[in-house]
């Protein structure tokens, strides 16, 4: 639904697109000219401007959706290339200034201009939101690859694998470890797994329970699991939290765990 004022503004803008675009490119280019060339910036803005005019004119139903998509893409690429959220939003908001400078002689369009500023403000906010979303995605992706990197599963010997954990364990990481270890059991046909927590400073109830569940799951699959590297502080925490380790085998060091697994596999280490 487009009112007469808006339609007239759309027509005015449509006719004066090049000049508005010039002004806009100049306003938006302030402060970022070292990172993006005026020509490139003008290209980006030209697309946004023509879609904006289309939306205001109300003739093209798909225009609003397309405008949203273009702004999202603008935000995403700005986020990736290290622009600040303020700079990105300012790019869009400076359209107001550009249009105003062209309206100076057309007093009858001023009422429409107010509605237009609100419209552009909303576009600016959309851009900001998309920017934040893109940054959050980057953070999430990085967190995921950090998680992957920090959970290696190593083969100690035929049929014996180990998962040496280092750093603070949280619920998400512990679950990932659980999954990776169990999958490794299948892939390597290992009947023994050693989860070493020497490098883990603290353990809370949730993490301890995940570890215990991992051991039970491994047993259900037909493999044996030992937890090693329990330091005095962790032992104290586990006992005072009332966590029952039941019949889950624990050993002090990874070496003890390996020795146990070797002997259970019917192997013995003898001097050469």
């Amino acid at each position: 639904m487009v009112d007469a004022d808006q339609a007239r503004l759309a027509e005015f803008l449509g006719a004066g697109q090049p000049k508005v675009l010039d002004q806009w490119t100049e306003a938006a280019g302030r402060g970022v000219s070292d990172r993006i060339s005026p020509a490139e910036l003008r290209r980006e803005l030209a697309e946004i401007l023509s879609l904006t005019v289309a939306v205001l004119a109300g003739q093209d139903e798909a225009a609003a959706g397309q405008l949203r998509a273009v702004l999202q893409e603008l935000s995403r690429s700005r986020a990736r290339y290290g622009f600040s959220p303020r700079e990105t939003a300012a790019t869009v908001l400076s359209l107001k200034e550009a249009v105003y400078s062209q309206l100076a002689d057309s007093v009858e369009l001023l009422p429409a201009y107010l509605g237009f500023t609100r419209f552009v403000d909303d576009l600016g906010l959309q851009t900001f939101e998309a920017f934040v979303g893109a940054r959050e995605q980057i953070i999430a992706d990085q967190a995921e690859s950090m998680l992957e990197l920090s959970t290696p599963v190593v083969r100690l010997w035929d049929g014996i694998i180990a998962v040496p954990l280092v750093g603070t364990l949280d619920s998400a990481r512990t679950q990932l470890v659980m999954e990776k270890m169990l999958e490794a059991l299948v892939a390597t046909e290992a009947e023994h797994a050693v989860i070493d927590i020497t490098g883990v400073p603290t353990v809370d109830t949730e993490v301890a329970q995940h570890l215990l569940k991992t051991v039970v799951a491994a047993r259900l699959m037909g493999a044996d699991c030992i937890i090693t590297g329990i330091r005095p502080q962790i032992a104290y925490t586990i006992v005072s939290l009332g966590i029952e380790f039941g019949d889950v085998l624990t050993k002090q060091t990874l070496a003890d765990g390996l020795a146990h697994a070797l002997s259970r596999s019917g192997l013995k280490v003898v001097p050469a």
Partner: protein
Amino acid sequence: MERVPILKIGSTLLVSIQVDLQDQSVQQLQEDVAERIAATGAKGVIIDITAVEIVDSFIGRMLSMIGSMSRLFDAQTVLVGMRPAVAITLVELGLTLDGVQTALNTEKGLRLLSGRS
């Protein structure tokens, strides 16, 4: 209703569950295994669940029952090929699968049965 085929290798019965089984089929399997043990005097049963994506409490209980029942015939049952996702879900459900032993695959299952593991 699909019936799960039961193969015999030496004195061991091999059951390989390939499809998403209906409750009826699992119950039928119980009966079929009992009959085959009685008929052949088999000493071991291997149930291969490598292809099974879902084990809920009903199926879990049926598997345990096959194990307990086989024991009445002096036969051991080994469940092999459990998928990690299934194992994790069973732990969450609190199902302990008593009555059956477990091994990573058929080869290890056979070794377990022959006491050579």
